[in-house]
């Protein structure tokens, strides 16, 4: 019996965002946008979804006079991401 893949992470853009955040302390919106190649609107929607389930936190502030939105993965998000990767490995090893 395979573990169920977390539907919140099993989406291209949300998975990319979580993969970036899993490797850094925090990242700002413009960095995530550049790395994923997503549009601002689409990225905002996906960030809201990840925030709603407590996988990431979002902090709005300023860098100089420019507004800055910073995203950070939470311990819950890190656990969910690790479980997702483990589940993927099981799927792949079973398919070989």
């Amino acid at each position: 019996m395979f573990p169920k893949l977390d539907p919140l992470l099993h989406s291209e853009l949300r998975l990319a965002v979580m993969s970036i955040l899993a490797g850094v302390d925090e990242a700002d919106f413009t960095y995530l946008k550049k790395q994923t190649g997503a549009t601002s609107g689409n990225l905002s929607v996906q960030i809201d979804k990840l925030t709603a389930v407590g996988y990431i936190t979002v902090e709005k502030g300023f860098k100089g006079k420019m507004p800055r939105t910073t995203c950070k993965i939470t311990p819950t998000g890190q656990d969910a991401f690790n479980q997702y990767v483990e589940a993927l490995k099981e799927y792949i090893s079973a398919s070989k």
Partner: protein
Amino acid sequence: MEQNKEMTAQQSLQIISETFNNSRKEILRGSAKYFMLWGTLLTVVSLVIYLLWHLTGKPEWNFLWFAMPVIGYPIAALMGKYSKAMPQNEVSKMLGNVWGVFGVFAITLSIIAIFLVPMRVSLIIVIIMGLAECMSGVLLKNWPIIIGGFLLGVGGAVFAMLVKGEAQLLIFTLGGVLLLVTGLIMKLQYK
């Protein structure tokens, strides 16, 4: 990137691996500019002090070393402020820590050597600088940087013991060039 495209397990793992690696490369490429800044500064300052000492015969020109942090830290802060917001990962944080600790040791030992206990400060600094460079190479998993740091530390120690006067400063010129090359290697390695 689409938000709800159907993905296979392989595609998911590929996205994770590609995104993670691209982000890692971008961060380390961003760290390269600090190596290039301090390398350029070290090369220029050591050469200027060498020339002034050589031309006037006065070792007091060594006080110009304190110009390095005075010039370097504000420029580094400005570079951070005006460049695109770059996150920190474990490697970039460790690199910053290694060179931060080196800076604290170098400045403290220089002050002690000048005002309290005379010591062969060039010898000590070149050894810890080689060590910091070597550690950077280990963190970046880059053999040329590891070997360069080792040669700078060990070769520089021998050079500092054999050579007297202003000629000792030339080892720091070489150290500056090595930092500059490290920055260039990082730019190329993480292209």
